[in-house]
């Protein structure tokens, strides 16, 4: 083929892209899985039992609930401050003189480029000094963690919301404002009746953006929050002082919420873009196709998100309530059993050495599997195989087909599956596998 090099390159790029997406989602996925594993240390494998107990642990954590509540109120506060500030900033940009505009823009955009810790520190110091100047008491606003955090976060979040408004305002037809004025509206009326309705989708998406940005902020908050706590500072403390799967559980909730928020944001943005297209059509004098925008809650994307959300929560709850205790007991029992088997196996080996021909067929198998597992270099395997073999020996040692069933099964499976394979050799499972074979 002539294009071989080209093909190889294309294949390589595709491989790279797939790898990138695995890199992107793998960690989140692994973390989410650990939240449902009953293992006391957050891990994906070995997966012991499906459980939602870590969510219950979370729900009983008062500090978390408090941090969550604080984060929520701070988020609302930031929305209430950053949305008007961003709006004013964007409107002002259209008003300042050409000469001043680059300077103005540089100043209002700079908080995005300043490290979050710097913003937090400067906010803290500044209001402290202001408080001292006015001789305010330590209980006053200037030393209040909520107030400082809202101010500190809004410093840069306002720049985010401003960017949202700027991009929306670029599509605003100024003659609309003039038309309203010309028809006798006052400036305030024009603002309220013409500009605000036009900006409504941008206001909504800016609010969502501001809330999310506030909710997940850590760098600024950690300095300004003082003695209070937010979700992120609580989380940081918890993660630093040792990890357990309840953090994963919290992560799952936050991932779900942010998924929801991100999708909501996306939907709002799409609707805004659609509305903008509509406006362009109107300006161009074309006939629009759609009658009216569908109500927000009836947007297919929104419905889909809500459904997935509900289905996920529901199934997690159902799955979590069924059979956790039994499974845990079983895992515990298996662990104990495994230890015992290991001891037994050791004893059995010792026996083999002493009496090589106890049972020829079974004996050969035993050696084979023992060799295999030794080659694989995973010590746990030994116990698995020996468990099965021991059972065979004990129960149906004579029946060749039955004895082979678990053997083939374990050969086909990748060695990586370690303890999970216990279940195959579970007496009940063994029967299930064996019976169809026997029927044949």
């Amino acid at each position: 083929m002539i294009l071989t090099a080209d093909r190889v390159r294309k294949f390589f790029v595709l491989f790279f892209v797939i790898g990138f997406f695995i890199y992107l989602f793998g960690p989140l996925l692994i973390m989410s899985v650990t939240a449902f594993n009953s293992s006391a240390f957050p891990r994906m494998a070995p997966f012991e039992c499906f459980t939602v107990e870590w969510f219950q642990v979370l729900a009983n954590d008062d500090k978390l609930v408090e941090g969550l509540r604080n984060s929520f109120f701070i988020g609302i506060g930031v929305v209430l401050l950053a949305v008007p500030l961003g709006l004013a900033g964007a409107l002002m940009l259209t008003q300042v003189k050409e000469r001043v505009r680059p300077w103005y823009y540089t100043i209002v955009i700079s908080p995005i480029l300043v490290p979050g810790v710097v913003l937090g520190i400067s906010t803290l110091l500044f209001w402290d000094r202001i408080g001292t100047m006015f001789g305010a008491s330590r209980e006053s606003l200037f030393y209040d963690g909520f107030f400082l955090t809202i101010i500190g976060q809004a410093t840069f979040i306002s720049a985010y919301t401003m960017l949202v408004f700027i991009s929306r305002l670029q599509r605003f037809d100024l003659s609309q404002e003039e038309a309203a004025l010309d028809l006798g509206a006052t400036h305030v009326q024009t603002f309220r009746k013409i500009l605000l309705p036009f900006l409504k989708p941008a206001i909504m998406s800016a609010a969502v953006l501001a809330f999310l940005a506030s909710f997940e902020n850590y760098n600024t908050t950690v300095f300004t929050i003082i003695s209070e706590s937010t979700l992120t500072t609580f989380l940081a403390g918890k993660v630093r002082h040792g990890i357990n799967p309840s953090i994963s559980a919290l992560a799952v909730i936050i991932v779900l919420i942010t998924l929801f928020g991100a999708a909501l944001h996306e939907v709002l943005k799409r609707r805004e873009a659609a509305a903008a297209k509509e406006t362009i059509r109107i300006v161009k004098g074309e006939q629009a196709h759609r009658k009216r925008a569908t109500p927000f809650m009836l947007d297919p994307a929104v419905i889909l998100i809500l459904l997935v959300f509900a289905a996920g929560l529901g199934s997690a709850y159902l799955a979590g309530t069924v059979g956790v205790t039994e499974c845990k007991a079983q895992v515990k029992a298996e662990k104990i059993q495994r230890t015992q088997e290991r001891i037994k196996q050791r004893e059995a080996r010792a026996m083999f050495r002493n009496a090589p021909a106890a049972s020829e067929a079974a004996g050969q198998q035993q050696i084979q599997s023992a060799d295999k597992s030794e080659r694989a270099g995973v010590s746990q395997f030994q116990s698995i195989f020996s468990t099965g073999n021991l059972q065979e020996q004990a129960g149906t040692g004579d029946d060749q087909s039955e004895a082979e069933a678990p053997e083939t099964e374990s050969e086909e499976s990748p060695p990586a599956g370690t303890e999970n394979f216990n279940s195959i050799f579970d007496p009940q499972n063994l029967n299930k596998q064996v019976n169809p074979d026997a029927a044949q």
Partner: protein
Amino acid sequence: MSADVQLDDVWIRFGDFVAAREANIHIKEGEFFSFLGPSGCGKTTLLRAVSGFLDPSQGRVLIGGKDMAGIGPNKRPTALIFQNLALFPLMTVWENITFALEVKGAGKAARRKKAEELLELIALPGQGEKMVSELSGGQRQRVAIARALAAEPDVLLLDEPLSALDLKLRQHMRTELRAIQQRVGITFIYITHDQGEALTMSDHVAVMSQGVIEQVADGNTIYNRPESAFVASFVGENNLFTGTVSEVGRDYAVVDTPSGSLRARHAQRDGKGQLAVGDGAFVFVRPESLQFAEERAFDNRISAHIHQQEFEGNFWQVFFNVPGSDKQIKLSMINDGRSVGHDLGEEVALGFNADLTVALPHGELAAE
């Protein structure tokens, strides 16, 4: 109620650029008045000065005899119809129409009633609940007019409102606009670069070029008695001969051109536009004023070679080469069922009379 509009020595400057200079116009109340000119001539600037979106750098704008200085657009008795209409896309038709009442605090019932009245006037009854986006171009046009009329202005300002429409709709809307103006009886000030619109609808037309008002008159005068080379070349089609004045009479002038001496109307005026013997001059004659001379007597007679003939149904357009000019001249004759009667390349004599010919001093010509 209606009001007159007066521009008193209005100048409008943007930095060094002069958008309008020395504008002196008196628009009588109840009149349909048009500003006609190519884009960029300053007509929209003057309109914005009347509507209050910008202040003249110098001079006064008076509406109903009242000086408008310092009065914002929302306080003036004017309503403007924007070039792109600027209908509010997030409002229904009736909300659009009654916006002016809404901002004055009128109740919903009153607004509804007014909306019905106006929808009746613009022949869109029962369409009030629609969104603007559901209307056709012509319907939007009428909604924009209704919205402006709802403000009960003394003066309605229209900034090329028909330019977005297709030809047929445009011609229909002309008639309709004129009818609406006669019904409501208020002053209309209309901005256009389309001379057809200006001539058909207006009581008076002001022709503008590069910030200067060249001539203010009724359509007939503008067409037949242009007062500047720009007006003559911008309004309608005109054949141009260039030459030197050899004789000036009380109401005529004779101009020597490469095609011969041409006798043309030249009204004695005071001040600008006066020709004297020896001056360079333009001679304009309309295509429909040219005739195949045959044996008949004409004030002017030139010879030309037929270059091309175009058949347009109701008209024949015949193009000629004339000596001393690389530009062709054009003759329009009504199609009376016969052919032009001459062949391509044939040399013919063309005749035209002095009262249909205009001599004007050199000046800026409209771009073709």
